[in-house]
Every structure is written in C-alpha cells, then in structure tokens.
C-alpha cells in the first residue's frame, strides 16, 4: 500500500524524496529477506570459525581444560609423525585418484558422445548408476567385491591367471582399493564432461575431417583444447575433495582395523588427514589440536579454491561459440 502512495507522488516534483524513501523501503525488505542468512552466517559460520581459531591456540578437550597454549598445537602438528603419514596418504590418493578418475570420466563421456549410435541414454544411465549408491553402501559393496578370496575383482583377475592381492588387508593395496571404488563412482564427472563435449561446435570437426585429420588427431587438436577449461575446473575440484577425503576412508579403515576402532586401517595405510582429524577430535577429545589441523586444512582448501575461481573465471571468458 505504501509503495502506491510513493509511486503516485513521484511525478509531483518530490522525486528525490520519494526515491530515497523507496530506497529505504527496499533496504528494509532486502534486510528482511536476507535475515535468515545473516542469522545463519553469524551462528553457523562466523562464531564457529572464530571459536575454531581460538581453540587452535588452546588445549581444549571439550570437558575441563581450555588453557591458552600459543602455538604449541601447531608446533606439535609439525612434529607429529602421524600427521606426515596422513599427509602422505592424502597426497597418494590425490595424485593417483584425481588423474585416474578424470581420465575414466572423460573416456566414458567420449564414448557417450559418439554420433550414429543408438541407446546412448541407456549407457549414460548405466555409467551414472554407481554414483547413486550411497557412499556407505558402496563401501560395503566394495569391501565384498575386493574380498581377497571370494571377491568379484579377484575372481575376474583369476580368469586371466592374475593372482589378485588382498586389497583390504595389505597396506600396499588399501589406498588402491579406495581409488578403484572412487573411479567406479565417477558418474558426476562424466556428465560434466559430456556437457562440455556437446558444446564443442560440430563445424570444427567437419572442417578437420575434410582436412583428413583422424580421430586421434581430432581429439588432441580440437576436443582437448575446447574442453580444457572444464578439465582444469574438474581437476582442481577433485583435488579439493581429496584433501577432505573422509567417508569412504572412515568406513574402510574402521572395518578393516578391528583393533582400535576408527584407526587408519592396516598399518595406518588409510589414515588420511581428515580421518586423523576426526580421530583426534572425537575419539581422543584433543579439540585444540584438531582445530589447529582444521585451520591448516582451511588454508590449503581456500588457496586451492582461489585457483578454481581463477580457472572458472577463465572458462567463462573462453567461449567457443
């Protein structure tokens, strides 16, 4: 009702006043609609982040102690050999899991992008289905698929005379077991690559075909450059999610290492940074120490995300059409 009055008055020469009245009204409405976020931001982001930084300088244990210890946690982290072990494991899955996952996702997308083949939607659904299996269910499934004596993978390997390893109990193979499962669940990346491939203009390929370029040459000279922004985006996103590797590792590690609950699996071979963080915080209640670990993780992730932003910015500018 109020706005009616203002709008009608506007032509009367009191334009400036009504504009500022309008603006004040919009400020009030904007604030009202944004208020859930503002409250949430304060309660679920600002306050906890502040507390986490504060905790990281204390020996907080959730119950009794909360003394200021300066940089002791950070110094301890530097001297904690499990931190280095967990960082090493995290780097392992990042450096092997990321390229492998991306190559398979892209390969599947390329197969789905073939022209003149019927039933592509059926194949697309089939490749995507594993992603829909909830992560805990899929971890259970793969602990069975990768079972040393009776599992699916070793049975199939047996057909070719390859003795499959004990994926889940041999520390050399446990991380590979996780990576195999992650590659099976690469459907989301595949869909993204497929969308990118479909945005490459057909005329590029036709021109190349007329010039006599074969499929391999077309892939490296046309497809790859055209979808490179998507690849960069995907690689960095995948790296960030690997830094935060937790759920699969938690399920695998806690079920293959019966001795100490949520340990790091056989020989701590599945002790990843975030699993170790969880163990420190919620099994040993070293909240101060774990907070310092979380703060360091945030720094790593923010730097990496800044890189994603930079690349996605580039992909917006890079328009083939």
């Amino acid at each position: 009702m109020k706005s009616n009055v203002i709008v009608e008055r506007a032509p009367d020469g009191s334009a400036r006043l009504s504009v500022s009245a309008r603006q004040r009204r919009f400020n009030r409405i904007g604030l009202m609609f944004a208020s859930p976020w503002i409250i949430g931001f304060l309660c679920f982001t600002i306050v906890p982040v502040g507390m986490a930084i504060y905790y990281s300088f204390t020996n907080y244990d959730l119950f009794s102690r909360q003394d200021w210890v300066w940089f002791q946690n950070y110094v301890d982290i530097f001297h904690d050999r499990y931190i280095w072990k967990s960082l090493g494991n995290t780097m392992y899955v990042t450096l092997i899991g990321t390229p492998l996952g991306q190559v398979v996702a892209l390969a599947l997308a390329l197969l789905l992008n073939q022209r003149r083949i019927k039933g592509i939607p059926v194949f697309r659904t089939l490749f995507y289905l594993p992603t829909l299996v909830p992560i805990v269910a899929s971890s259970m499934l793969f602990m069975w698929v990768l079972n040393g004596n009776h599992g699916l993978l070793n049975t199939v390997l047996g057909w070719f005379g390859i003795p499959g390893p004990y994926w889940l109990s041999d520390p050399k193979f446990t991380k590979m077991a996780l990576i195999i499962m992650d590659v099976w669940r690469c459907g989301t990346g595949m869909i993204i690559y497929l969308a990118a491939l479909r945005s490459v203009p057909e005329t590029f390929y036709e021109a190349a075909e007329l010039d006599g370029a074969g499929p391999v040459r077309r892939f490296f000279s046309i497809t790859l450059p055209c979808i490179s922004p998507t690849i960069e985006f995907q690689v960095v996103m995948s790296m960030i999610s690997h830094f935060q590797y937790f759920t699969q590792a938690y399920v695998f590690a806690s079920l293959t290492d019966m001795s100490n609950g949520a340990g790091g699996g056989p020989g701590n071979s599945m002790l990843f940074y975030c699993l170790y963080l969880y163990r420190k915080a919620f099994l040993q209640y070293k909240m101060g120490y774990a907070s310092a670990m979380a703060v360091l993780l945030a720094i790593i992730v923010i730097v990496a995300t800044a890189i994603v932003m930079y690349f996605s910015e580039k992909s917006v500018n890079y328009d083939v059409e």
Partner: protein
Amino acid sequence: MKTKHGPSLSSRITRFVGIFLLFFFAAVFALPLYWMIRTALMDDALVFSIPVRWVPDPAVWENFVTVFQRMDLAKYIRNTVFSSVMPVIGVLFSCPFIAYSLTKVPWKGGKIIFPIILFTMMIPWQVTQIPMYSIWAKLGLTDSFVPLILPTFFGSGYYIYLCRQYMKSLPNSVIEAARIDGAGDLRILYTIVYPMCKSTLTTIAVLVFIAHWNDLNGPLLYLQSSSKYTLSIGLQQFRKADNPEWPLLMAASTVFTVPLIALFFFAQQYFLNGISTTSGLK
C-alpha cells in the same frame, strides 16, 4: 556424414572400437551392481563356495525379510527419511528467500552478501564441526536431529548460489509491475517467483535429499543412541557388530540404494540439470 562415398574403412574401425568399448565399460560398471544383488539373494553358506556361483540358485528372497528383523531397518529408514526430508523443507524455505533478496530487491546489501556467501563455500566443514559440536553439546542437543536439520533453515551457501543463478535470469519487469499493483514482496515471492523457479527448486530438492540420505559424518557425530540411527550409521554398525554376513549386508545396501535409483528415474532431468549447473557449464 558429409563424405561422398559413405564411411571410409578407418571410420568404420573407429566406430566398431567405440561400440566395443561402450559395451566393455558397461559390463565393468554394471558388474559390481549385479554382484550386490546376486549376493543379496544368496544363501549365506553358498557365498564362499569355489568356484564362484554367479546366479543365486535358489534365490533367497527371505534375506530381505531377515535383514529387516536383524537390523531394525524399518526404523533406520524412517530416521533417514526424516533427516533427509526436513533439510529439503529447510532449504526450500530459506534459499529462495535469500536469493530473492540478492537478485530482485535493489538494495546495497545484496552486493556485499553475495561475495561473502561465495567465500563461506570455501571453508571446509571440518573447521566449523568442532565448535558446532561443543555448542550443540552445551545446548544439550547432541543425540538429536536438531543439529542436522536446523542449520538448513538458515540457508546453505551452495544452494543459495544455485537459486540465485536462476532467479537472476527472471525478468525484473514482472516483479516491478506487481509492485506497482501494490503486491507485497512476500506475495511476489510466493505467487510469482516460486512458480517460475519450479525446475531449479526441484533440482535443489533432489540434491539436498541425496546429500542428506548419503551423509555419514553428521549422524556419526550427533546420533549416538541406536533408536536414532540412520541407514549410514546402521549399516556401518551392523557390519561392525557381526562377522560379515554378506548376503544380509548386501540386502541392506540394496534397500539403502533403491530409493535413490527410483528418485533418479523419476527426476532424471533434474539430476542432469543440477550437475551441469553446478559445474558452471550453464
């Protein structure tokens, strides 16, 4: 197809290899799923037989009944549905609200808030998890669904972002016309903007539902008593408690998976939409 003499030999070979690989990968990706269903229908004693039995014969459908008795699966399903549907309601309530303020209300705050939202998306949840836990513990709300649900009613950066991207593309003229006609902004949001955003909101609903259906970390921290377990925790605990009884575990995993696959077949386009929107391709 522009060549005059039909497909050449090399293109026919390429095509054959392409089709072959398509079927090969299809088999590789489908086999574990088959393995799950095959084991779920198998007699416990036959699981470890050598050579491997590929077809469960006879098919033991009772496994699905047994697992409901042994695991209290019905309760886990109820809890999981509750802790997945409530966040959907929360997000659908809060995010369009906030996105409206960012896109359709001409005020200064919008320009300040949006970059902050983007920045908060970079903060890993591991950072806020410890302080949040101690806050909920002080409020006596651990071992309840409140910590899993309440925050969604205050918006979540990622879904606000999705909602904002779409709302930005809606024409302002419709909203201005409604304002001149004297409609309040709340009414504009619910009668004009909401219906226009239907497909984006459905996409968001699907994404939120799946994320919470899958979640292990939240329930792991906040749901301690077994009467509150979700499927994630229940499955994990069941495996821990016994020697692995693979047929029952696989039956439970199948039950855990089927709703998402059903959802996928009903809302396929929203899944695919959601994925390509989030990757910045749209």
